[in-house]
């Protein structure tokens, strides 16, 4: 039977888990407003299904499970918006990446030396701001593929199944997002 005694009161959820769930969502949807809405829906969904909380997992794990479903629903609802792709335009606008022989055009497009340490990156607010902004420039579907692969570590085949993409599409999308993100971070975060 459901064990309500293991649950905190819903009013406490916001203070106990709000930031955690919000960060979880914002890393995956790259938009603070959407992330806050998803967290709110998660709390409301949890409220309605409190009897389904079996007490087998912690309250937090249970809430994250609900949030994951909300994020996937959001992905499915927006993933069609990926068809007209702004990335190619973006690449053209920022100049030709490669010359006609397929070599980097070193100036200004060749990769610069970043000199940043991934270990200390967690403390750099500017990095996370730039990351969110740069991913916000990518179509929702492409950003979703990227998040599922790079944060959640799903395989290309799993991602195609979740987002209903044809096989192999994931690899092309990941390439485009990485090309954009790399250049965008270099320009906006490091100012190179």
């Amino acid at each position, binding site marked *: 039977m459901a064990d309500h005694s293991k649950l905190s009161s819903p009013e406490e959820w*916001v203070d106990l888990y709000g930031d955690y769930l919000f*960060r*979880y969502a914002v890393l995956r949807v790259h938009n*603070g407003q959407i992330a*806050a809405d998803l967290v*709110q829906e998660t709390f409301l969904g949890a409220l309605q299904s409190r009897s389904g909380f079996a007490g087998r997992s912690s309250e937090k794990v249970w809430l994250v499970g609900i949030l994951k479903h909300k994020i996937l629903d959001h992905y499915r609802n927006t993933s069609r918006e990926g068809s007209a792709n702004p990335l190619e335009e973006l690449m053209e606008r920022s100049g030709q990446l490669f010359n006609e022989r397929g070599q980097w055009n070193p100036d200004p497009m060749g990769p610069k030396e970043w000199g940043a340490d991934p270990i200390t990156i967690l403390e750099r607010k500017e990095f996370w701001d730039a*990351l969110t902004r740069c991913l916000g420039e990518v179509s929702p579907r492409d950003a979703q593929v990227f998040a599922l692969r790079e944060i959640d570590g799903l395989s290309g085949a799993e991602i195609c199944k979740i987002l209903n993409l044809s096989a192999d599409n994931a690899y092309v999308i990941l390439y485009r997002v990485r090309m954009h*993100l790399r250049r965008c971070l270099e320009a906006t975060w490091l100012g190179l």
Partner: protein
Amino acid sequence: MLSCEEVTRLVSESLDRPLPLRVRLSVQIHLFLCQWCDRFRRQLLFIRQALRRGAAHLEDHDLPALPSLSPDARERMKRSLAQDE
């Protein structure tokens, strides 16, 4: 010899699935000789590492670098939870 453009595609793909041995060797030779593509590869790995570290440290409340809920959003959530209960 592979071009830089081809190598960037293959480097990206190698982060998602194993490349055939012969292709992998050609890429490695190119990376050994080309500082641009070698940087490119290190930067992609950097981005992945940063994201995964960020995702693993969501609970660090003293990490101001990661975004938090705004006071407004908190209030809104508390109100709607109180209403629905």
